[in-house]
Structures are given as C-alpha cells and as structure tokens.
C-alpha cells in the first residue's frame, strides 16, 4: 500500500515552546489515521505543516511524495483541509462560498455552480444554500466547511478536530459524513481529543502529547498494551470500601493505579474471568454487599492515563492534565 502522508523527525517551535518534537508518522493511502491528544499537544501544528500553512523547523513532511515546503503548490492540488474553526465566509451564502472556492480551484463558472449545488444537496444544506453563513448553526458551518474542502475531491483530507464544540446530534451527522468519505476510499488524517471519536472513525491511532507521538497502533493494540483487564465493583455501602479492597486483594486482584468514585473500586484482574470469580467469592466471604461487579477491557482513557498520567477529554469535558490521583475521572 502506498503512503499518502509521511513525516520524518518533524520539529516545529514557537518561541520557547516545542510544538512538534521529532514526529514520525505515516498515513497509508485509503486509511484513516487518528491523531489523539489533549489541547496543545501539537495536533493542529502537525496538520498545518502538512497543509503547507506552516514551515517545519527541522525534519521533513511529504504528501503523496511531494515535499510540503519545496513542492507546496503541488501539495495544495491534492489536499483538502477542514480546520477546527470553520473557515467559511460569514458574509457569503453557503452557495456563494462553495462557488468561490470552486472558482479558486479553477473550475469553469458553470462547473463550479453545479458542484456547489451537488455538495449542498449532499451535506443537507440545500434549503439553507441561499442564506448567509452568519445565520448558520455550528453544525451547519462545519458541514459547509467540510463541503468546501471537497470541491475537487482531494486525495487526502485533513480534518482538524471536526466535531469540537458541536452538540451530540451534529457530531453524529459529521461522523456519518466521515464514514461515507472513508467508504469512498478517501484518505483521512483526523485529529481529535475525543476517545470515542478516535475509536469509532479511525483505523490507526497515534497518541500525541507535548509534541511527541507516544504510542501508535489500532485501538485494540493500544488497549492491549495497557495490559490486564479490570474488575469493576460497585459497593452497596461506601463505608465498605477499605474492607472490599482487602477482600479483592485476597481474591487475586491487584492494586488499581488510579482511584475511582467513593462507592466504586477498579482493580487489575491478571487472570481475567478467573480473578473475577475469586474476587466475587472473597467479597461474599467478607459479607460485603455489591450492587454491580463487572470485568472490562482497558479503554483508551486507561491507555492515555498510563502513557501520560492525564485523562483525555471524554464527551466535552476538558482534559485534566496531571489530574491528581484521587480525583474522580
């Protein structure tokens, strides 16, 4: 499979801050690479370098074999970019926006108009096509922004946090569009701070933190890398917590590496289901009431916590960088 985008030892600094610190990445043609990380991790900087908007300080980046610095004009012919902040023209209508970008891609006037109509239809904006973008909702803007970057059917699309700040319904709509693009064979580089989004939409995930790629693999590989499954216990009485912990240790569970809410315990289960059975017996022997007991695989949040000591964003909450142990997740 050929490589759609590649970076080698990519470095970019802003004054004293190192936004990208020797980043090596590859996006295979026809695949979706998710770049997962908290705010300020360097995701946007990486996308901007690949989209020819920022020059790297060191290392190189190429798109379909074209260098983003020395061959920038050719790179621009094959990429589409949808930024975190919808870069559409507020004072133009949706249709005028698409025609404008079509004309700037050197489509003849009539072809640009036809393409605009087609995209408005496809992105469910046909009814709003003649209203100025000022009157659009956040979700509509984002859809128009996406449509704008698809005028000439780019070979690779950069989606920089496509759903940040959107309500759940709009988010699902964008996910639907992204899935459709993937089915059509579009290569995507998608940045996100949402675990679920990375899990749902991407083939591979690169976890990025403070300008470095700290892990890479499929969602499952990353989860496996954290190791054992977890036993999750919900107690009937919060006061039983310490006794429950002792019982679980007797049952073969291992100390958790992060704390839960007061009425809950999450501990590593090295032997999986067997540990669960032993743990259940131990709790029963100690006479501790349990309202729920389950075995769960590690989530991407566990991966992130393991790698960085911080949680990533889950559904609209800000990531807690260096969250003190003992705080609820």
């Amino acid at each position, binding site marked *: 499979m050929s490589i759609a985008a590649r970076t080698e030892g990519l470095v970019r600094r802003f004054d004293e801050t190192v936004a990208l610190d020797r980043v090596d990445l590859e996006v295979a043609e026809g695949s979706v690479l998710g770049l997962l990380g908290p705010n300020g991790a360097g995701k946007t900087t990486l996308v901007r370098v690949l989209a020819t908007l920022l020059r790297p300080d060191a290392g190189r980046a190429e798109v379909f074999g074209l260098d983003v610095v020395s061959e920038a004009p050719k790179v621009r*012919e094959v990429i589409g970019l949808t930024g975190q902040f919808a870069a*559409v*023209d507020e004072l133009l209508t949706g249709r005028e926006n698409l025609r*404008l970008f079509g004309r700037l891609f050197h489509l003849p006037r009539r072809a640009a108009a036809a393409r605009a109509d087609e995209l408005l239809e496809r992105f469910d904006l046909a009814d709003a096509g003649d209203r100025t973008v000022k009157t659009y909702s956040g979700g509509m803007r984002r859809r128009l922004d996406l449509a704008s*970057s698809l005028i000439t059917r780019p070979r690779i699309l950069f989606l920089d946090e496509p759903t940040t700040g959107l309500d759940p319904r709009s988010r699902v709509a964008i996910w639907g569009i992204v899935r459709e693009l993937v089915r059509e064979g579009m290569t995507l580089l998608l940045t996100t701070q949402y675990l679920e989004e990375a899990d749902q939409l991407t083939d591979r995930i690169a976890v990025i933190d403070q300008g470095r790629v700290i892990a890479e693999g499929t969602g499952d590989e990353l989860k496996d890398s954290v190791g054992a499954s977890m036993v999750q216990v919900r107690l009937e009485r919060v006061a039983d917590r310490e006794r429950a912990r002792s019982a679980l240790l007797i049952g073969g569970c291992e100390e958790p590496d992060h704390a839960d809410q007061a009425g809950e315990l999450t501990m590593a289960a090295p032997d999986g289901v067997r540990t669960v059975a032993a743990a259940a017996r131990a709790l029963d022997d100690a006479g501790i009431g349990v309202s729920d007991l389950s075995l769960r695989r590690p989530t991407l949040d566990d991966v992130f916590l393991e790698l960085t000591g911080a949680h990533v964003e889950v559904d609209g909450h800000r990531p807690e960088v260096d969250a003190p142990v003992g705080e609820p997740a």
Partner: protein
Amino acid sequence: MSASTAAAEAGPALPATTRVWRAVEDSLVVTGRNLRHFVRQPQLLIFSTIQPIMFVLLFAFVFGGAIEGSLPPGVTYVDYLLPGIFIQAAAFRSTQTAVGLAEDLDRGVIDRFRSMPIARSAVLVGRTAADLLRNVFVTLLMAAVGYLIGFRFRAGPFDAVGAILVVLAFGFVLSWIFTFVGLTVRGAEAAQSAGFVAIFPLVFASSVFVPVRTMPAGLEWFAGVSPVTASVDAARALSIGGEVWDPLVQALAWFSAILLVFVPLCVWRYRRMG
C-alpha cells in the same frame, strides 16, 4: 478526478502565460468576493460615506468663514476644501484595508486560501483592488454632495478626471501600506488603531484643511514634504486651477517609492506567514 488534480499528477509546471492568466483570474475572484462583502455590510458603506460628508459640511460651514481670509483671493473655502476632504477620506478608508485583511486572517479564511492552489498574489491584489473600487464609488458620491453645497471642478472636465485619479492613486498606494499593517498586526481592532495613529497626524499636518504657510515653521516643513500635501495640492490644482506639475511630480514620486517598498514587503510577509 478534476482537471486541476490531474494537472498536479501530470507533474510539469504550468506554462508562464497560463500562470499569469490564473493569477489574474484568482485576483478577480477574490476582488469579487471582497466587493460582495461591502454590499453585505451596508451599514459599513453608509458610515464610511457619511463620515466624509459630515467632514465636508462641518469644515465648510464651521471653519469656512475663518479660513477663507487666508485663501488666495477669489477662492471659496468649499472649493478649497473638497479636494482635501477627498484625500482625507481616502486616507481614513485605507486603514480599512488592514481591518479587512486582519478579519480574514482571524477567521481562518486566509488559511483556507493559502491551503489551496491559488496564486499567492491573489489575496493581496484582491484586497487592494476591491478597496480601490470602493474608493471610486465613495469619491464620486462625495463630489456629488459637494456640488449640492456649491463646489465646482473649475479647471475643466479633463482636469477633474485627473483630480479624481490622483485621489484614487493616493488611496491605492496607502492601502498597500495598510496591507502590510494588516499582515503584521494581529487582530482587526489593533489594525484599526494602528491605522488611525499613523493617519491622523499625517492628514492634519498637511494642506488638507488649511494652507500650510499658516503653520509654525517646523510643522510647515513637515507638511510641505508630506505625501498627503503633495497629493492634496495636485488634486486641488486639478480641481480649481493653480500650479499642477510640481505637486503632481512630487506625489507620483511618493506613490512610486511607497509601492516599491511596500508591495515587496507585503509579498514577503505573506509568503513568510507561518
């Protein structure tokens, strides 16, 4: 796959004539987009038109009586003032070039343009060209208002066209300075303030409102060499008669010098962005 993508795959660069034509085409498209912005913000257009009209009326009627005494005999203050106000209004409006550009930068529109295969010059040319066309509209409107309160182009129709051209050239040249400001200063409001700080003293320390020989010596010298005075004097001579060539040559020298410095500066700044 579209024609432009296929072209990229084919590899070799476009022939020079195609590239030039595309740059012109891109600039026209961006100009059209900016003009559409003016129409979509009628309040902006109305206020940027009312403001110079207000200046015309206030200065003509408030200061007219006092200033007329220091004017050459037979010249009314309205005739004297109008060419100055044309220039003053063009100078104030040129700061809007920086504001428009800064807004596009803030909103990410320029990022999208820069990620697309369009001529690098199109954003800058499209901006200054649209602002030039707006100047044509506002200047003609101001001349019409001037006619209502007694102003006349007394040196004939050809000179009148010349006077308007001087005003437009002055505004165009200044918008390149403010293109640079817009590309350099972050934020539309900062661009706006930076513009006024530069423009106010230049406009008032010139022959826009009063003859420079009424000023103290140091200021008179400054006003005498100012591009604003040269432009006003040229436009004024072309409107109501008087020595044309001296100020016109001085103004054209200023225009060329400013363009020679600021066009390359803007292009350099735009290319180096990021």
